[in-house]
């Protein structure tokens, strides 16, 4: 488009996914992500792609498994309760090493919870969620622009490492409108290259090629010695992702900072406003915002711990989940305090300021 477009986050990530070469999308309606599935139902047929409204989130993620097994860029999306249903399929995607993108527009929980923004799925997204020994890259946007940009990044990471990738957004980013600058849509030639990149393992025609063993899309290995090798191989892959794909933003972080905030997504947005005001008032404070919440920027937090840092504040829209990773990074060297809101309630910049001043 070349110029900025005012769009909801849910629509922006859908448009960006189509531009990134996604031509297969399967999902089930749920608030607050419904604009995403609606956008796909309008635009996917126009892009020559496939849109199927599945009978459940479980069916949707298994349709993703089938399309991903054919080597295609494929996406599904949901909100917290629906993501729980997709967890079975995500474990299978990880086990069978299939690239796929899953968008979670988080809402309040547990259970049905409500339909307001929350960050209560952090543990589920970053510490497993599905069964078995797997990890999954999780990208946490904090603006609509970043939400859109992450579609492309998620597909790239998925293809590079043959892994499902989650974009961990929330109801605020899904529903709010901001100007977005889109990348150009992939050309026919680029789409053809994408199609071929997985031909050494995926399902595709021309099975008559001499010496081509039939391809199996599979997470089952009944022989423990072989499964052991497979899981060790997965572990080595996760190590590589941890070594190469950590992403974070430093905000107003200087050597003379006395306070450090660690926050992601919507919580980080609010914290930024508080930091701006506190800096004006003379409080020396900066922030580290994890962009990948797995792999987690432990090293960046450790490196920010200058002798001047007195305390760290973690702000989240939950009862305190990411704070465990911050504490792992800090290793008890500095006190870590917490400001959280739950039930779909947001904190204000003033509440962050008050918390810092009371520390």
């Amino acid at each position: 488009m070349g110029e900025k477009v005012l769009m909801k986050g849910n629509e922006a990530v859908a448009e960006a996914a189509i531009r990134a070469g996604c031509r297969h999308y399967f999902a089930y309606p749920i608030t607050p992500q419904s604009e995403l599935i609606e956008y796909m139902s309008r635009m996917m047929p126009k892009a020559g792609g496939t849109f199927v409204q599945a009978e459940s989130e479980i069916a949707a993620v298994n349709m993703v498994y089938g399309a991903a097994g054919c080597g295609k860029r494929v996406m599904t999306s949901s909100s917290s309760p629906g993501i729980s249903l997709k967890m079975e399929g995500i474990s299978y995607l990880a086990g069978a090493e299939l690239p796929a993108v899953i968008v979670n527009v988080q809402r309040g929980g547990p259970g049905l919870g409500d339909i307001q923004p929350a960050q209560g799925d952090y543990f589920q997204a970053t510490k497993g969620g599905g069964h078995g020994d797997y990890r999954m890259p999780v990208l946490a946007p904090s603006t609509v622009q970043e939400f859109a940009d992450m579609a492309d990044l998620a597909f790239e990471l998925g293809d590079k490492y043959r892994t499902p990738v989650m974009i961990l957004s929330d109801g605020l980013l899904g529903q709010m409108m901001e100007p977005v600058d889109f990348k150009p849509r992939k050309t026919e030639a680029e789409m053809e290259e994408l199609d071929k990149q997985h031909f050494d393992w995926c399902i595709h025609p021309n099975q008559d090629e001499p010496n081509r063993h039939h391809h199996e899309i599979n997470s089952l290995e009944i022989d423990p010695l072989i499964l052991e090798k497979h899981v060790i191989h997965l572990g080595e892959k996760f190590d590589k992702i941890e070594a190469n794909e950590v992403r974070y933003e430093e905000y107003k972080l200087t050597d003379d900072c006395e306070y450090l905030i660690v926050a992601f997504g919507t919580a980080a947005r609010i914290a930024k406003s508080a930091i701006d005001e506190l800096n004006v008032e003379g409080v020396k404070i900066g922030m580290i915002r994890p962009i990948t919440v797995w792999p987690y920027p432990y090293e960046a937090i450790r490196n920010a711990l200058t002798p001047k840092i007195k305390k760290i504040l973690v702000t989240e829209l939950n009862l305190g989940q990411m704070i465990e990773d911050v504490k792992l990074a800090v290793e008890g060297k500095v006190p870590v305090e917490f400001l959280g809101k739950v039930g779909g309630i947001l904190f204000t910049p003033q509440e962050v300021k008050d918390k810092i001043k009371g520390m």
Partner: protein
Amino acid sequence: MQVIAKRPDSLTDLNFTYCPGCTHGISHRLIAEAIDELDLRNKMMGVAPVGCSVFAYKFFNFDMAEAAHGRAPAVATGMKRARPDMHVFTYQGDGDLAAIGTAEIVHAANRGENISIFFVNNAIYGMTGGQMAPTTLPGMKTSTSPYGRDEQDIGYPIAACELLDSLRAPYYIERVSLLSPQDIIKAKRAVLKALKYNKENRGFTFVEFVSTCPTNWGMTPLDAMKWAKENMYPFFPVKLFRDKGEEGGK
């Protein structure tokens, strides 16, 4: 030298892992023969279930996916939508299709997905050791219905063909059996028809095989076939439910 009989190209040379007297070997072979005869192998893809036939992905000699329990029709939907130039079938047992996967089979059929489903009904969970299935007959003893299936407590067997026949979209639905050589010849015709329609992208095709499980039924293979004829046919009659191809393709 003239070849009289050989392994179909659509089967690998691995030995089946099925019990002696099990009918899975027959249904695998019928599907493989039909794929060869229709010259479909280089465009074929299949989905294996969870159950005794969980290793079907090793036995069929073309690209295969192993699905989570019950999800094969959803996986096949994704595969067919991603590769409309290829053809896909699922191979599922009664626990997989008629219990945990009920939603997936009903909705794939209702969408009229261009896929074939081969459904093996032997009225029991074989792989996990003979537990009650959704198709277990009233009074039938299994390891989780040790006093016999009590239909007042747990209901009657689910008849998959009859259930799917209430939907408008499916193109072809037939129940066949594997209980005698004549039945197997008829079953082969049904498999061929389903895969021919699949090749022509005509829509959703479904073939149920009334099958046996001598091991978990505690019978010899011949007794199992006799028992199945006497006890399964009343609940699962061999029947052509629907063939839109015969009706002029409406």
